[in-house]
C-alpha cells in the first residue's frame, strides 16, 4: 500500500471494459447515492447478467476524522463525538468510550450508574434493531414493517429525551458514571414501554417470519460460515447467526450485565434468515434485561469520584463492549496529558462490512441489497 491510489480500486476496471463485449460483464456503481446502501456506501458491482461476479466497497464518503479530532480534545470534550459514529446506537458508543476512559483512570462507576447504563444501552439496542428491521424489510420490498418499527422506536426515543434531553445523539453518560439522575417516573415509563413493545415484536414477526416470500428471499442468502466470520473478525449478530455463542456481555461482562439473567440467541446456517431470527430473539432478550434492571435498580450515587481535570496516567487501554452491531472497541493511548495521544475505534460495522464480498459473490443483485441490509451497517461508523 505504498501508493495511496492503488488501494482505491483493485477491481481492474480497464480489464472489465475489455471483456465487456466478449463476456458480457457489466460494471455498475451502486451508490453512493442509492436508496438501499444505508447512507453513502458505494459498491462497485461486476455483473454477469444479474449474477454478481465480484464487488468492491468504496467507503469514506462520510469520513469526518473523528479519531484525529480526539487528539485535539480533552477526554471529556471528546465524549459527544462518539455519539456521531453509530448514530442509531449512540448510547452504546458513549458507554464504550466512558468505560474505556474509566478503565484507564482505574475508577469504577457506582452500581446505580451501571444499572442506568444497562437500561439505556439495552433500550438503545432495541431501537437499533428496530431501525435495522424496518430498513432491511424495506430493502427486500416489505414497506409496512418500517412504519411499525419507527412507531415503536419513537417510544424509546421519548424516554431518552426525557432522561437527557436528546433523542438521537444522546451523550447520556459521563466518564465516571452518569450526569443525570433518572427523572420522576422513569421506572414507570420503562415498565410501561416494556409491556407496550412485547406484543409489537410479535406483530413484526407475524408480518415476516413465516411470510413465504420473506423466507425465500432470506434463506440461503449471504451465507457465511463460522470459520469465515472468525477469520474476518465479524462480530455481533452476524457471528452468532453462524453458530458461535460469543457475546461480550457474557464473555467479559461490563456495566451491570453480570447481575442479569439472559440468553445468547444463536443460529446455525449463518444466512440472512438466521440473522433475522437472531436479532428478533435479541430484542426479546433486551426486554428481559431491562425488566430485571429496572426492578433491581439500587439507590446510591450515580457518579464516582472523578478528578476535575481528567489526566490519565501514561499507558494504553483496549476496552470493548457488545454494541447492537457487534464488538465496539476503543483503544486509547495516553501520554499523561489531558488529551489522548491516540484513539482508535474498532467499529463493528466497518469490520462486518469486509464480509460483504464473500457473502455476495455468486449471488444475484437483489441479494446484495439483502446482505447489505442484514449486515446492519451504519456508514457514520464505517467511515468515522
Amino acid at each position, binding site marked *: 500500500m505504498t501508493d495511496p491510489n492503488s488501494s482505491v480500486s483493485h477491481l481492474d476496471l480497464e480489464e472489465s471494459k475489455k471483456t465487456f463485449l466478449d463476456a458480457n460483464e457489466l460494471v455498475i456503481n451502486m451508490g453512493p447515492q442509492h436508496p438501499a446502501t444505508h447512507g453513502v456506501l458505494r459498491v462497485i458491482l461486476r455483473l454477469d447478467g*444479474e449474477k454478481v461476479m465480484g464487488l468492491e466497497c468504496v467507503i469514506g464518503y462520510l469520513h469526518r476524522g473523528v479519531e484525529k479530532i480526539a487528539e485535539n480534545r480533552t477526554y471529556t470534550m471528546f465524549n459527544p463525538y462518539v455519539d456521531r459514529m453509530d448514530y442509531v446506537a449512540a448510547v452504546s458508543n458513549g458507554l464504550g468510550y466512558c468505560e474505556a476512559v474509566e478503565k484507564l483512570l482505574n475508577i469504577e462507576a457506582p452500581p446505580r450508574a451501571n444499572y442506568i447504563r444497562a437500561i439505556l444501552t439495552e433500550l438503545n439496542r432495541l431501537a437499533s434493531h428496530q431501525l435495522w428491521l424496518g430498513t432491511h424489510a424495506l430493502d427486500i420490498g416489505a414497506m409496512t414493517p418500517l412504519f411499525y418499527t419507527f412507531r415503536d422506536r419513537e417510544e424509546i426515543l421519548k424516554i431518552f429525551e426525557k432522561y437527557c434531553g436528546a433523542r438521537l445523539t444522546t451523550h447520556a453518560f459521563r466518564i465516571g458514571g452518569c450526569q443525570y439522575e433518572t427523572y420522576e417516573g422513569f421506572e414507570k415509563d420503562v415498565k410501561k414501554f416494556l409491556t407496550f413493545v412485547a406484543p409489537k415484536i410479535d406483530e413484526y414477526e407475524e408480518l415476516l417470519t413465516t411470510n413465504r416470500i420473506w423466507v425465500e428471499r432470506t434463506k440461503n442468502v449471504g451465507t457465511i460460515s463460522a470459520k469465515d466470520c472468525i477469520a474476518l473478525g465479524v462480530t455481533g449478530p452476524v457471528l452468532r447467526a453462524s453458530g458461535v455463542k460469543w457475546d461480550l456481555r457474557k464473555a467479559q461482562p461490563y456495566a451491570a450485565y453480570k447481575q442479569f439473567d439472559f440468553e445468547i440467541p444463536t443460529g446455525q446456517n449463518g444466512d440472512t434468515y438466521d440473522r433475522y431470527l437472531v436479532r428478533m430473539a435479541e430484542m426479546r432478550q433486551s426486554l428481559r434485561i431491562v425488566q430485571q434492571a429496572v426492578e433491581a435498580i439500587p439507590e446510591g450515587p450515580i457518579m464516582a469520584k472523578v478528578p476535575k481535570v481528567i489526566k490519565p496516567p501514561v499507558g494504553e487501554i483496549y476496552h470493548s463492549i457488545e454494541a447492537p452491531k457487534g464488538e465496539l472497541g476503543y483503544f486509547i493511548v495516553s501520554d499523561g496529558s489531558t488529551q489522548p495521544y491516540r484513539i482508535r475505534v474498532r467499529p463493528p460495522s466497518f469490520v462486518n462490512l469486509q464480509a460483504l464480498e464473500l457473502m455476495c459473490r455468486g449471488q444475484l443483485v437483489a441479494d446484495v441489497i439483502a446482505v447489505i441490509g442484514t449486515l446492519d451497517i451504519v456508514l457514520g461508523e464505517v467511515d468515522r
Partner: protein
Amino acid sequence: MPGFITNYLDKNVHVTPGQYGSPFWALVYILLVFGGVSLAVVCMNWLERKILAHMQVRLGPMRVGPHGLLQPIADALKLILKEDIVPEGADTFVFLLAPLIILLSVFSVYCVVPFGPTHAITDMNIGILFMLGVSSLSVLGIVMAGWASNSHYPLIGALRSSAQMVSYEIAMGLAVVSAVLMTSLNSAGTGTLSMIGIVQAQYAQHTWFVFKFFPLGLIAFFIFAVAMVAETNRAPFDLPEAESELTAGFHTEYSGLRWSLFMLGEYAAMISVSAIAITLWLGGWMRPFPNLLHGPTWDLTFSLFPALTFFGLAAMTFYSTVRMPKHPYFRIQTIGLGAFGGVFALIGLILLIPRVHDSVQDVYWFVAKIAVFLYLYIWYRGTFPRYRFDQLMKVGWKVLLPLGIGVLMATGIVGLRTEIWDFVQRLVHI
C-alpha cells in the same frame, strides 16, 4: 337534433356503437372511457396513498385540500410544470417515443372492455385475443425506455421487465383459454372470444366461471390473478422498478410529464387487466345472482345499490366534515369537504331516477368489481416483500405454467365428460 346524434339512442339498440356502426357515438364512448379511466387513475392514486398510509399507521396526504383530496391534482400540475429532461447520450427519438407506446397500448385495450352489454366502444369477435395482444405491446415500450436511456439501471430494469412479462403472459394465456373453453359448453357447442359473448355465456350457464367445475375455474382465476400482478409490474412482482435495487428501473431517467405518462400507463393497465379478470371469471357487468334473484322486487333492490354507495360516501364525507377541527384555519378545508359530500349526495340523488339507475346499473357493478381488484393491488403492496428475479421466473415457469396446462386439460376433459363416456361405451360394445 341531427340524426347522427339521436339515431343510436332512438332505436333502443342492443349493440355497442362500434357494432352499430356509428362513428359519432363511438367517439363519444372513446372520450368517456379515456376520461373515465384517467379520472379513475387520479382517484386510485389518492386512494392508494391513503389506504397504504392507513395500513402503515400514518395519515398519508393531508395538506392539499381536505384529507389531501387535491393532492393528485397538485402532483399532476407539478409534473407538467417540471423540466422535460432528455439525458445526454440517450437515443432521443426512442426515448421520447417509449412512454407514448406504453400509453397507446394500454388505452387501446379499453376498446373492447365491456362495461355493460351495450356500454363498450365496440365488441370484436376476437375481443380477448385483441386485449392480450395489444396489452403485451407495452413491453416494447418498456424495453425501448430502458434501452434508450443509455444507463445501466434502466437497462437491467427493462431486461427484467421483458423477461417477466413474456413469461407470465404464457401462464396468463393458458388461464384465459380455459375460460374461453367454458364458453363453448352450450347446446350448440360453439365458444366465443368476444368479451360481451363471454359474459353472456356466463349468464346462460347460470354461473360465474370462477365457480364453474369447482375448483378448476377457481384455479384458472388464481393463475390469472397472480399473472396479472406480474404483468402490470406491481408488488410483489415489481422487480423492473424495484426501488431498493434499481432506484426506479426502466423509468429512472424519465422526469416530469413523461414519467407521469408511465405512471398513468401502469395504473390504467392495472384497471384493464382487472377488467379482463372480471369479464372472464366474475360475470362482468352482471349483478350478483341475476338468475337466482330476479323479478321486479330484486331488480329494484339491486338497482338502488349505486345510489346507496354514493349516499354512503356522502355520509362518510359529512362525518369527516363534522370532525374537522373548529379552528378558523381549517374553515376553507371544512367547506371544501362539505362540498365534496354535497356532490356525492347529489350524484346519489340523480342515481335514484329510474331511467338513470337502469342505464348505469351494469357500469356500476363492473366498476365495483374493479374497485375490489384495485384494493387487492394496494393490499399486496402493503403486505408482501418483493420476489427475487430467479424466484419470480421459478413461480412463472415451474408453478403457474404446469398448473395452467393442467387446468386447461382438466377443463376440456370435464367439459366433454358425456361425450368421452359415450365414446368409451361404444368402444366397449364393439
